[in-house]
């Protein structure tokens, strides 16, 4: 009985300790969540105000009006810019996945000095920021006769994404068993067939990671569209949002800008919500092998 009582006291003490530890852990997690989510809530709350409302953004949800959204939608030419963003992002991501997997395949498989050199050649592209060499790139494009159209930023996105994507895929390629390919080879599959039907489907987790990281970057980027596109009809969403930024004489119209931010992020949110199951399954499929 005494022993049982002591055990009860021991469990009670332990429970108190675990509870305090768990409480502190939850507190830290909640603080981090608040730091991350608070700006998003402030943006959304401010976007629901009229453009004239200048009260502090920290006063959350004091007004519910779609006036800022209407103004942002009409001033931005939202449908055209949305189409431009979709074409640029989808086209660039598609090309990046195709080119990067095809480049990573021999780099991951062939064990020669040339393959190693090519690997480091691609990796070296990660060291130099593209903004630093934008002037020589523009000169080269001009000499090649490539006009400033909506495809010029796509060319830049594909080129600048290749180093990271090749790095990602070649690392993943090394984890793909060679035996599967060998069995396909024995069955008479050509190199292209082996790549397209055996290797490419096994790269699904890496492809999803590449699509998410590069797609997000391309969707949000305004540097290349702003440098290479002159016509307003070819602007993407981030470039269209810049008009609300204002200057020193005319300060930013924050409520309209926040509404434009929400409109810009909305397609990505919809895509993620629609495909989140596929994303998670794809990443999980790579985690469990065999």
């Amino acid at each position: 009985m005494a022993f049982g009582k002591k055990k009860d006291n021991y469990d009670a003490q332990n429970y108190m300790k675990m509870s305090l530890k768990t409480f502190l852990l939850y507190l830290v997690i909640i603080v981090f969540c608040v730091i991350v989510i608070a700006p998003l809530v402030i943006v959304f709350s401010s976007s629901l105000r009229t453009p004239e409302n200048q009260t502090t953004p920290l006063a959350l949800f004091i007004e519910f009006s779609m006036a800022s959204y209407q103004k942002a939608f009409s001033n931005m030419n939202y449908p055209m810019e949305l189409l431009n963003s979709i074409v640029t992002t989808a086209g660039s991501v598609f090309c990046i996945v195709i080119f990067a997997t095809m480049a990573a395949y021999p780099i991951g498989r062939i064990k020669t000095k040339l393959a190693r050199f090519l690997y480091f050649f691609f990796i070296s592209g990660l060291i130099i920021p593209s903004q630093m060499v934008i002037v020589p790139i523009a000169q080269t494009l001009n000499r090649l006769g490539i006009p400033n159209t909506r495809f010029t930023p796509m060319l830049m996105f594909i080129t600048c994404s290749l180093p990271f994507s090749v790095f990602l895929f070649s690392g993943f390629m090394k984890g793909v068993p060679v035996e599967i390919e060998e069995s396909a080879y024995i069955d008479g599959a050509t190199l292209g067939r082996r790549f397209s039907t055996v290797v490419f489907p096994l790269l699904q987790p890496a492809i999803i990671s590449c699509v998410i990281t590069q797609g997000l970057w391309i969707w949000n980027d305004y540097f290349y569209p702003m440098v290479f596109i002159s016509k307003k009809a070819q602007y993407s969403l981030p470039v269209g949002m810049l008009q609300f930024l204002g200057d020193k004489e005319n300060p930013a119209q924050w409520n309209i800008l926040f509404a434009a931010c929400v409109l810009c992020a909305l397609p990505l949110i919809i895509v993620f919500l629609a495909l989140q199951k596929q994303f998670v399954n794809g990443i999980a499929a790579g985690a469990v092998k065999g």
Partner: protein
Amino acid sequence: MMKKLKNELGYFWLYYKWQFLTVLTVLLLFLYFGVSALTEKKTVLSVMLLDCHASCSQEEMEERFLEDMGFDRKTEKVEVQSSLMLSDASSGNYAMTSLSRFLTEIGSGKLDLCGMVLQDFEKYDKSGTFLDLSLILPQELLARLENYQIRTEDGRIIGLDPKGLPVLADCGCYEEEAAAVGIVYNTTRKEKAGEFLAYLAGE
């Protein structure tokens, strides 16, 4: 016969659909780029007005300049960039991107005329960005605009004050701050740029 055709098409689609779609995509892209290249209008003038706070839009200025300069609307175009900001941008990223655009346009030799606030104008002229206008513009015009000339210490006339350019003033450009408009040193259309500057001055 219809059934045979259907079977053949089914076989073709089953075994060659990716090759077919790839060739079709490539052909469509060639068609798109070919048509774009053939119908592309020639840029006869490229103007960049940084920090100008114009009251009329870029498109309105392009239309006006195209019409007033007598260019062929069907085959020629004027490019005006008036939304870029260096000094007055409220965002550092926007200023950096505008600067990159400015440098790429100059570096690739596409820019003919540039306007910016006086401080930046003099700063960039230290690396010889702007031409001496006395070599391009007629002496009568320069004499008329004597009070609006921007001169360097060695006597070169590198730019004109927009307040002496009624067309720019009409578009609401550079109303408040001190600014300058000049011809870029590596433009391939010096005469055209000179004519345009004369037009801006009301000639």
